[in-house]
């Protein structure tokens, strides 16, 4: 139960901090939200910088070009990235945080060699093709069909909520390879080349007005059998590996950023006045902020416990569900506090009256996705109840 960073951790921190101080300003400001080619180039360019400096794939094994950092170095990394205001992982999200790690855990040597170095260098962007219109929370009900034809699968189906599909090179694709088996036993996990013939991508604007995700239609798309990760019909097990990475400590840097966001809200509260007094003079508001600070401290301690428990590159534990559940709802409460503090300034999605409306509204709107994506909060509660507490399934 020791929270002290070692000398070598502190050395790592000092080096990383110095590197970030030099390279974050060099990388410039992000391109406009709607300019996707520029966003891809900017995010991938940052990934390339990380790679060249030896900071890419912080928890990936060294043999695949990762840093293989110890759990404590990983925490230092998340803290420093957030503190420096470094570019967020952006379009590299799927490849770095769960597509790549899934290949590390389950891929063939050929698959690893073909994809892992390219992901780390920012040359290959991944998207996710898991959900379907009829298979959301009940993911295993997916219907996208793959029929074996020689050395290929011929795939037909309809995927939805595919983040970054329009800029991706590769997708994580779940298909049904045995329609006669029970639903969890007929699924396979394929690597989908996004330039294959028969793929149609239709953007689906989010409620934030952003073109982040798309629907993907697959019409007689031929995917080599060699692109299958794991055995045929063993895809559900692989999927759970992917999902655990997705729900694990993927949010670590954002948690540190949220602490900075809360501190910014305090400065807003000290500036805005209500009923001839500063918002900050309201003891109830201060206690609410203090309460949120306590929760942020506690969830960061929970990340430390979780990272300490995970072996270096092992699959994160089920407690990732508990973390995700609490963190995402806390995020929404903090964003909602921001909306209340802005008052009528929250009616504009750009800074008005010298208040940070753009950032607060971005967080308030974007945070609505957090309790839905990667397994809704209701599904996470089922996971905690059934797989951790051992309660019986409803059916």
């Amino acid at each position: 139960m020791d929270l002290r960073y070692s000398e070598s951790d502190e050395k790592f921190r000092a080096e990383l901090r110095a590197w970030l101080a030099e390279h974050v300003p060099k990388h410039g400001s992000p391109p406009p939200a709607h300019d996707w080619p520029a966003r891809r180039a900017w995010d991938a360019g940052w990934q390339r910088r990380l790679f060249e400096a030896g900071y890419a794939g912080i928890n990936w094994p060294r043999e695949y070009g990762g840093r293989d950092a110890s759990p404590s170095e990983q925490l230092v990394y998340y803290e420093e990235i957030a503190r420096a205001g470094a570019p967020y992982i952006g379009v590299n999200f799927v490849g770095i945080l769960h597509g790549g790690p899934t290949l590390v855990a389950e891929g063939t040597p050929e698959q690893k060699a073909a994809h892992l170095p390219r992901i780390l260098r920012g040359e290959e962007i991944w998207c996710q093709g898991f959900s379907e219109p009829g298979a959301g929370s009940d993911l295993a009900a997916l219907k996208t069909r793959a029929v074996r034809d020689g050395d290929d699968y011929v795939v037909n189906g309809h995927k939805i909520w595919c983040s970054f599909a329009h800029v991706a090179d590769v997708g994580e694709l779940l298909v049904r390879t045995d329609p006669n088996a029970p639903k969890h036993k007929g699924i396979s996990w394929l690597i989908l080349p996004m330039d294959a013939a028969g793929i149609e991508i239709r953007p689906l604007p989010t409620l934030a007005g952003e073109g982040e995700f798309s629907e993907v239609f697959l019409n007689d798309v031929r995917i080599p059998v060699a692109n299958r990760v794991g055995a045929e019909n063993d895809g559900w097990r692989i999927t759970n590996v992917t999902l655990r990475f997705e729900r694990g400590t993927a949010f670590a840097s954002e948690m540190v950023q949220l602490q900075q966001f809360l501190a910014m809200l305090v400065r807003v509260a000290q500036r805005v006045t209500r009923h001839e007094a500063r918002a900050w003079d309201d003891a109830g508001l201060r206690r609410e902020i203090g309460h949120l600070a306590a929760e942020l401290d506690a969830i960061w301690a929970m990340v430390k416990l979780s990272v300490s428990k995970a072996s270096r590159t092992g699959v994160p534990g089920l407690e990732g569900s508990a973390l995700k559940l609490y963190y995402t709802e806390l995020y929404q409460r903090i964003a909602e506090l921001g909306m209340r503090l802005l008052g009528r300034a929250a009616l504009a999605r750009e800074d008005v009256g010298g208040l940070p409306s753009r950032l607060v509204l971005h967080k308030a709107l974007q945070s609505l996705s957090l309790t839905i994506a990667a397994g809704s909060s209701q599904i996470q509660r089922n996971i905690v109840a059934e797989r951790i507490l051992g309660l019986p399934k409803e059916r």
Partner: protein
Amino acid sequence: MDFRVDEDQEALRAGIRSFCEGRVPLDELGRLSGLDRAFWRDLAEMGVFQLRLPEARGGLGLGMSEAVLVFAELGRRLVPGPLVWSHLAAELIPGAAAGEQVIGGLDRMLPGSEPLLIEHLEQLDALLVLRPDGVHRLDPRKLRARAVATPLDPLTPLHEASELPEGERIAGPEAALRLRLTGGALVAAQLFGIAEATQELATAYAKGREQFGRSIGSFQAVKHLLSDMFVRQELARAAAYAAGATLDHPEVGDPARAVSSARVVAGDAALANSRACIQVHGGMGYTWEMPCHYYLKRTWVLASSFGNGEEHCERLAQQVAAGLGP
């Protein structure tokens, strides 16, 4: 950094857990009466009071990380008595560490209009009072106080004192602050223990209780109550452990902030979980015979010790405003 409970700590926890389970059976809480001196000496034997005393002074020489683990177990099992005060007194009052003296206390660092309610007064050999100018020792037998006929927590008897004499100042203002901080961390640990115990009780009940021909734990409405209890418990665990680890090594963060955060989060978890525990037990949860109400009542007692949730939230807000990190 390795935040896991290590092997020695795990052994310490297992030892105290089996001691508590043997000595405080949950189905006999109603039969516990008064504080048994032999039990108190056995608690001392287990190291509850002398845990952090240096080995040269006959203690175990352990730290707050270990104390947090031990007090979480005491909270889990509703162990009665002035545990925190006797633990704090180990360094100040001879006989406290060995359990020969039972020490109680009162926190008067931020006195308000509150009545002077003293826990376990009849059992006390000495009463510590924390005041801004230091730690004062009072003789409990000379105190003018009346017994409260119906204390909230059946296992925490109360007296109301009409006045509080000055007493003898045995340590300065820094010691008073330090004891209050340490006491706060140990209270947070007990609150976490309550959050964990009530989750386990409710989960076990939901698995066994059948309605509509099936276990009520299979219904999502109940399941989601229980998973929220688990999440709150884990958050409280992390915060309580962090408070212990930060007090042991202040270079990793601000101990006062870590203790305030732990108090807030563990206090919420204990309160929400002991309430939910009653809810999951249904009508049985509302009966005296089930242990659920003892947990909620103990939570209310603990939540008013060494600063309440509102005070800690205010402190945290001021820290965020001052730009101080965790």
